[in-house]
């Protein structure tokens, strides 16, 4: 019989020891600072490049073909942003940043030169960054020559795209109707996507929504494997420390292995949840506009998937954590214990290995089978509920939960027995058959 008072005592001690350790404090609060600093360092060259790009970039054009009809300098008009993207970016409070980025395109100015010699002289004076020459047979050949100093190339995609836009606009201007000219200039101004469900229902969807539906489960899967790996490290370390410090016998004389194992799982789990909470909180503060952005795009946040995460993640942690704790205790040192932990972590990563297939067919045979296997079900169910909630039956979710809970009950009992044998082991590791025999005998 498990005495919860003992479990609570073990859990409180484990949790307090963990959250008061330097390594936990540094990881929890130092990681976001590190990520922030890293982002800052990485963004410096990007900032400098952007700043340089914001300066007016003047290019010469020698139009021997006479297709541009330029009398004076011309700035290429900014690119069009799809309305749904613009409204999402505005909802996220990033309209100003978007405008700054768009302004970058306004800085392409094309200056006409009557002869190539004049253009070359302007280049030599530094008045232009380079120039393009459209030969007399340009319309027939489509060949455009670019000239630039040795230190710079005109091959940059943005410059080329700006010239493309200018050419398309000037080639059709006055030759076709204005609306047709506008369409040639911008063949797709807005994209509308539709989904057809299995029942034949037609549903509106957007590219952004699809991207969210793909990215969210990937994020969940990564988060699950990461949290299992990190928590397992703590669990394995705490047992190894007790073996090294020889406090095991006192512990086992005060609480039974089930109580110690559950206490450790809960204590380390709470410490892990606190750490995740701090990180998620900081991330939420940093990206407070994310939800607004999703709704502006017409994307419903994957509430069902998120609810499943809240339900399945702690269960997944208990399942894998108990296995790691039980088998990890058989290791005679931290390295051996960690090897056991890695074996389970690899099993936890199986859905990630099959991710492409699961995303392609979220309710296919593989996904349906994995729904019932506790090693994979937490990730797979969350993925199915996020990608397409309509394709998974309620009894599949309930059934996988029942199987997972039964799996936890079994692994905790098995691990407690292994833990009882393993935690008392010192020196050379006995054979697996001997371990199993002792676990059976108790």
């Amino acid at each position, binding site marked *: 019989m498990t005495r919860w008072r003992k479990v609570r*005592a*073990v859990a409180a001690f484990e949790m307090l020891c963990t959250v008061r350790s330097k390594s936990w404090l540094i990881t929890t609060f130092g990681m976001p600072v590190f990520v922030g600093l890293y982002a800052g360092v990485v963004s410096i060259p990007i900032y400098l490049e952007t700043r340089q790009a914001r300066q007016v970039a003047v290019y010469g054009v020698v139009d021997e073909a006479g297709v541009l009809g330029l009398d004076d300098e011309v700035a290429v008009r900014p690119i069009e942003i799809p309305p749904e993207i613009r409204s999402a970016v505005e909802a996220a409070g990033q309209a100003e940043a978007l405008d700054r980025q768009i302004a970058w395109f306004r800085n392409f100015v094309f200056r006409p030169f009557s002869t190539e010699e004049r253009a070359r002289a302007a280049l030599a004076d530094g008045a232009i960054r380079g120039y393009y020459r459209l030969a007399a047979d340009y319309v027939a050949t489509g060949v455009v020559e670019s000239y630039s100093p040795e230190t710079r190339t005109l091959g940059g995609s943005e410059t080329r795209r700006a010239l493309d836009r200018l050419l398309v606009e000037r080639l059709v201007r006055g030759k076709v109707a204005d609306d047709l000219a506008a369409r040639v200039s911008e063949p797709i101004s807005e994209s509308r996507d539709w989904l057809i469900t299995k029942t034949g229902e037609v549903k509106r969807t957007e590219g952004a929504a699809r991207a969210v539906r793909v990215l969210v489960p990937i994020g969940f899967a990564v988060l699950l494997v990461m949290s299992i790996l990190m928590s397992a490290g703590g669990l394995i370390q705490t047992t190894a420390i007790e073996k090294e*410090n020889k*406090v095991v*016998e006192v512990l086992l*004389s*005060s*609480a039974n292995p089930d109580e110690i194992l559950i206490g450790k799982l809960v204590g380390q789990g709470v410490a892990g949840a606190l750490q995740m909470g701090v990180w998620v909180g900081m991330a939420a503060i940093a990206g407070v506009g994310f939800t607004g952005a999703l709704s502006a795009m017409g994307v419903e946040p994957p509430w069902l998937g998120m609810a499943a995460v809240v339900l399945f993640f702690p269960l997944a942690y208990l399942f894998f954590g108990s296995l790691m704790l039980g088998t990890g205790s058989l290791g005679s040192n931290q390295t051996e214990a960690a090897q056991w932990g890695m074996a389970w972590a690899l099993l936890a990563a199986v859905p990630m290995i099959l991710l492409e297939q699961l995303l392609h067919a979220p309710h296919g045979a593989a996904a349906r089978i994995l729904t019932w296997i506790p090693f994979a079900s937490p990730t797979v169910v969350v993925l199915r509920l996020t990608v397409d909630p309509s394709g998974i039956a309620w009894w599949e979710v309930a059934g996988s939960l029942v199987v997972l809970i039964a799996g936890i009950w079994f692994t905790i009992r098995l691990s407690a027995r292994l833990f009882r044998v393993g935690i008392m082991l010192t020196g050379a590791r006995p054979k697996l058959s001997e371990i199993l025999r002792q676990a059976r005998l*108790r």
Partner: protein
Amino acid sequence: MTVLVFNELRKSYGETVALRGVSFEVRAGEVFGFLGPNGAGKTTLIRILMDIIRADSGSITLFGEPHRREHLDRMGYLPEERGLYTKQPVLRILTYFGTLRGLDRAEARRRGREWLERMGLEEVASWRVERLSKGMSQKVQIAATLLSDPDLCILDEPFSGLDPINVRLVEELILERRGRGKTTILSTHQMSQVEQLCDRVALIHRGSLKVYGEVGEVRKRYSLPEVRVVAEGDLPPVTGIQKVEYEGDSTWRLLLEDGTEPRDILAALVRAGARLERFERVLAPMEDIFVRVVQEAAS
């Protein structure tokens, strides 16, 4: 009153037999010496008592009831293989061990402070264990064991690593417990401490009980019929003495003939005019008994 009864306990590890049907009792309020050479099966028996491992057969009665895990909250255990969390502060560990024994957190913390004071360690409450000397660490572990004031306490080699002053401190703690009717099982290889502290003993060897009973009675059982006499002047000849050996400093050791009681010799010496200053039965030291029992079993 009996607090603990071992009844025919048997335990094997594969082909190795650790206990071969061990039975004995421990009474309330006594200091009970649990002795045996290394590998005799002492640790196995203690681990069975503490529910760390299970016996293959046999039974244990604790506090008048069949052995249950709940009884462990009334017990304390200082194992031979022991240690503390080296990176944690002393008081936190004491509080933890107290809560594991059923105390609430505040009470465990209060008692932890009290015990540190009692052990002369009040200044180390906030120290990490790794800062403690071996002796300090040993005292902290004893404090952790006795913190919950257990009715039955098992101390396995509690004196190892302690200087004579701290040995005396721990001896006093054990005797103080006996004065309050608390039971202590003392497992040690220091036979002088067994003679000094224990009321009764059990000695096991190769999983079998070899010696069991009151310390004085056991020592008598394994002693020759000898008396030691300190007297002024010469010792007059009396009948019933097989051999006389002068040990110096007016002290004689007399080996009695079979069937002669020490009180007969005392009366005869007084009648013969011996000026006696001291007369005592020579009892075999526990150490000699230990060695003899183990060697006899080996031969």
